[in-house]
């Protein structure tokens, strides 16, 4: 089962400073995301039905929405690590 990201971990540090780290539990936003997705899916279904009845060739909005959510889920595992001469930035999504 493909799930959206659980945590977004951001670390920023500059020489001579303590730096900061944000460990954001994205999992807490899942209920909101679910509500949004359900609402958007409903709207997309209505739009699709209207397009289908009007004879439009393109009517794949619900599928587009689901694939977009799939894309969001596949972001898991992305990691960026940048070390400058006096700073460090590390972003990890998992």
């Amino acid at each position, binding site marked *: 089962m493909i799930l959206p990201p659980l945590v977004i*971990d951001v*670390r920023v*540090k*500059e*020489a*001579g*400073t303590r*730096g900061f*780290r944000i460990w954001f539990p994205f999992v807490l936003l899942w209920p909101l995301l679910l509500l949004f997705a359900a609402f958007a899916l409903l709207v997309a279904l209505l739009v699709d039905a209207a397009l289908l009845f009007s004879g439009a*060739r*393109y009517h*794949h909005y619900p*599928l*587009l929405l689901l*694939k*977009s959510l*799939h*894309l969001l*889920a*596949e*972001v*898991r*595992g*992305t*990691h*960026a*690590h*940048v*070390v*400058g*001469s*006096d*700073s*460090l930035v*590390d972003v*990890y999504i*998992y």
Partner: protein
Amino acid sequence: MSEERARILGMLAEGKITAAEAETLLDALASTIEESTAATPGPAPASDWPTGPSASGTPKFMYVKVTGKDKVDVKVPLALLRAGLKLTSLIPPQAMDQINESMGEAGMSIDFNNLKPEDIEEIIASLREMEVNVQAADGDNVRVFCA
């Protein structure tokens, strides 16, 4: 600019240290930052990532490594690339035409309308053998590979 960095550059400007000494000090400063951050709990550090394409098996990630003045390590799941390419086949035609036009203006004449699901799998599979190695004139080195 950090206090330490400014102090090193100040010493260099005053002639108290040579350019080579300043470079050594700045390098030491950068490694101190990296070590102190790597010590904190979290994901595996970029130093543990593969250094080249995998010889066998299906690649899972695309790696972008930049070395030089700054060091950049980026790891992107290939599943994200696959999902993105599949999404392009569902984009409404009007929007796709605009995307193709904008990409054409930017010098990338790729027509996503021609991309089929079977092509996507072939692209992902052939990425295993791909390796891009760019050596810039200023000493920066960029490597892109999948492993």
